[in-house]
């Protein structure tokens, strides 16, 4: 039987017996876990303040739900940390099919909110497949990349991976959910990058992406072709000139800036934050939660939050380096870059340095799907780290 280094079927077979569950637990990245826990805690603290007056006479309406989501997400994180990531590699085709059909099913049974069909109602819980799709997408594409790792230097391979990866991207884009589609694309690019696709390919793809961007945002509208809806177009370009933007498009950003700025160093506290409590800040529990948090907790709180993200991202990148195989490394790379992209774009949009897109802030924005999916992704990262460490110990012992 022909076996390749990195696929490690044989190695794993040998190691599987050696790696006890205990070893996995022992080699958990406790700093990463601690960072995520702190992030979730700060996020809950933020939600508690931002949503204090969101529902009349029930200051903890959103907080209670968010705690429930954290509990569910925590359980899934533990589960994901214990599952051997190799499982995902073996069944990547199935995962891909589930991802694509979950996203596609929204068009059939989903329900619309704010002009966009993103949710599936499960009765007790409205579930947003594209959030879970982020993780599944990364797992599936990483599986494909790992399978093709011998031929990763070829254009055929790059284009095939790209072609398959763009299917869910397009599905999400036409929901329409431009922000999430961009997250998918960022994750896809990161996976190609980590998998070792040649710079030449990356440069060409990057150039094409840039051309498309220019075409869609500026050249297209100039000649009367618009791939984006008007509001998307405005939101993407408005942040460069908020004060001259149409009232509705510029208003959100102006209010967000006023909220963040008025927090100053110490914050105005949940009771004094007029931007949030009087409804001037749009979507304060979800997309603009960072602005509300910054208004209430000030620079001290917001900087603390950003540093916690930095900690988690640093540990996440470290996981890439300790991964046991290419699949794991690519998965870790995809998860970390998706997290980075979401955090940067969300926080950036509230401060006017990134376009306004409907991307929630991981671990903070109110929303079950996002919270659970992000915690699950962290679980996968922990699993990769633990297995990588465990296999290293095992190799060392051998």
């Amino acid at each position, binding site marked *: 039987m022909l076996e390749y280094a990195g696929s490690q079927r044989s190695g794993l077979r040998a190691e599987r017996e050696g790696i006890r569950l205990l070893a996995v637990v022992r080699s958990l990245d406790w700093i990463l876990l601690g960072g995520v826990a702190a992030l979730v805690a700060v996020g809950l603290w933020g939600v508690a303040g931002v949503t204090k007056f969101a529902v009349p006479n029930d200051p903890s309406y959103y907080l209670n739900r968010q705690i429930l989501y954290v509990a569910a997400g925590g359980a899934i994180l533990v589960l994901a940390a214990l599952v051997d990531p190799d499982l995902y590699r073996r069944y990547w085709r199935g995962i891909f099919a589930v991802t694509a059909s979950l996203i596609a099913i929204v068009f059939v049974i989903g329900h619309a909110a704010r002009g966009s069909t993103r949710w599936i109602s499960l009765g007790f819980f409205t579930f947003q497949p594209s959030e879970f799709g982020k993780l599944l997408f990364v797992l599936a594409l990483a599986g494909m990349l790992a399978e093709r790792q011998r031929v990763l230097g070829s254009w055929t391979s790059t284009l095939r991976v790209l072609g398959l990866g763009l299917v869910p991207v397009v599905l999400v884009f036409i929901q329409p959910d431009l922000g999430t589609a961009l997250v998918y694309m960022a994750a896809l690019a990161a996976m190609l990058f980590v998998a070792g696709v040649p710079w030449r390919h990356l440069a060409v793809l990057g150039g094409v992406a840039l051309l498309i961007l220019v075409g869609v945002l500026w050249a297209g509208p100039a000649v009367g072709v618009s791939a984006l809806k008007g509001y998307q177009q405005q939101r993407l370009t408005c942040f460069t000139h908020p004060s001259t933007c149409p009232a509705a498009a510029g208003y959100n950003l102006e209010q967000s800036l006023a909220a963040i*700025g008025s927090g*100053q160093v110490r914050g105005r506290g949940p009771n004094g934050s007029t931007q949030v409590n009087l409804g001037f800040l749009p979507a304060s529990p979800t997309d603009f939660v960072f602005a509300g948090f910054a208004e209430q907790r000030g620079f001290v709180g917001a900087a603390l939050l950003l540093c916690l993200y930095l900690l988690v991202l640093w540990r996440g990148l470290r996981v890439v*380096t300790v991964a046991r195989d290419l699949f794991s490394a690519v998965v870790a790379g995809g998860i*970390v870059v998706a997290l980075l992209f979401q955090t940067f774009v969300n926080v950036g949009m509230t401060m006017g*340095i990134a376009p306004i897109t409907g991307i929630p802030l991981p671990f903070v924005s109110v929303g079950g799907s996002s919270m659970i999916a992000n915690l699950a992704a962290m679980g996968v990262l922990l699993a990769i780290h633990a297995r990588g460490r465990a296999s290293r110990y095992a190799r060392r012992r051998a």
Partner: protein
Amino acid sequence: MASTTTAPPSPPPRGKQPDERGETVVQPYRLTPKLARRVGLLGGVVLIGFAALLLRLWALQVLSGSQYVARAQANQFRAVRVQAPRGPILDSSGRVLVTNQPVTSVELWWADLPKAYSRRVSELRELAHVTRVPLYEIAGMIKRRKLAGDLLTPIVIRDEAPRPMATYLQERAGGFPGVVLEPTYIRHYPNGSLAAQLLGYVSEVSPEELRTLAAQGYRPGDEIGQTGVEGQFDTYLRGIAGSGRVRVDSLGRPLGGRTLVTPPQPGAAVRLTISLPLQRAAEGALQYGIQLARNNGQWAANGGAIVALSPKDGSILALASAPSYRPSVFTGPVSSNALAAQGLTSHTALDKNYPALNRALDVTYPPGSTFKPVTALAALEEHLIKPSAFYPCTGTFTAPEDRSHHVFHNWDPNVYQGMDLPTALAQSCDTYFYRVGNAFYELPGSRGQPLQKWAGRFGFGKPTGVDVGPEQPGLVPTIGWKHRMYTPATDSKEWQVDRLWKPGDSITLAIGQGDLLVTPIQMARFYAALANGGKLVTPHVLMDVQNPNGTIVPTPAPPAAKRIPGLNPAYLRVVQQGLYEATHLTNGTSYGVFGGFPVPIAGKTGTAQKVVQLPGLTREEDQSWWCGYGPVNDPELVVCAVIENGGEGGSAAAPAAERVFGSFFHVQANLTGPIHSD
């Protein structure tokens, strides 16, 4: 499997390594330098991204935080205007003529109305029903506010809500989103219709007025004095509106009540020279005079005016005009039905004989014989007559140069005697003055038009400059005026004849008839000049203006009394003698009224023909006049009374004026009864 127990070789073995059997040796996955570089690069991206976020956060929150705090503050507070209570209007002794009444007003915050059109309409309909303000009026208020581009300040639906209405709305506040009850003030008139035209009224500033007044600080929703004292002295009365702020949410809905930022400064108290008891007496006297005229068969007598002023400085002590109205119709919700009932709309004004007109200032009448002192003084000054010389008083007079040979009649056809000037004034001999008028006509053109010149010096034909309007200038006909008046356009048939100044023009002018028109205030001012020895005063009602804290607001002083240039005091005394004889000799025209009055009064009757429009017909009616002053040795009060269509001056206007004197001097009159007179 390659050995990895020893120190890892550098670079570590990687990829496929064909062994002896040509099979691939399984190599464990290792961190390659290439991957390490790429991960390092990603780390760099993370650091750059987060550095950008943190720097931006620092810039927003720490560097320009205070600026954003201001912006957030501005977001949540809406400035509202807090109306200042309007200053009271007082009489000369500080008695209240107009004051304020605290009331509850019903206001509407547009932004807080339901968003759904049907629910909005049904709420407004319900509100119209409860406040009894018609829906179309509410809609009109909203529309005007929309046009002004200001839907953020509340709209006053009804500025005085009776207690049950306020309670009803308060208890059902949930059913009326956007409706707020605010304490405010409305004008209160403790004396009813007293001095209504003089005091004027207050109403909300109109969009047309705003266009010119916005620069002076008026804003939509402000009250503004419309006419009379309220209008003239609005700047003193209105005070300075304060500002408050109301916390609103992002939809502009008010949260809680308003808080004062700068308290409003109440308006200053305007003290008038008017004396409340004398004003009341004058209005009573006017009604009495009208009633007397009606009793005499002058059924069309239905209005008039009385001016009472001090001849020393021109301060007006009473200014009555009838018919009158209740200014309280302009407070609270102004309904056109209520206005119509008071004769304040264009449809009902004629039926009610124009109650809004201030007849003392704003209506002109032919003065009739009350004008004779003007003719007398002018003729003396121009040496057309001698004070003590006797001239014939006959039943009729025909001017020798009058080609139409018109016969001018004396009011008393059975007279044939020589009269000196005082007697001619006392008995009001028309033919005496016809001759004087004819003498004016016969003067050579080089002498100009001395009668008109003297009339002008005595203040006729131009506004008196009284400090409260509106005021008519009146008319003194001149040769030039006739020439301008009659043109082919105005008088197509006989303009060439009509425009000529004929003997009859001078003759009728001499007895205060013809084209001559004067206002009662002009007449009172002239008699003041007769009383005070030839000084023309400027009538005024403003005494002083006092801030709520007691300090006096500087106001322009009324112009000082001006000596009439060229007037010979000796001639003036002759006329004064004539006026005294008119009230104290048995042949005097108002002897029956003033002959037994305890205080010596001098004065002149007048009966002026005027073509009047009555409801349904147009005919010539006698306007009853009396003007005079007293006590004669040191005059303190000038009274001029006109009873419209009241008949002879001695039978309606003189008894009315007598009542004013009676009130002023606190004496009871003992009338010998009005007599047949001019």
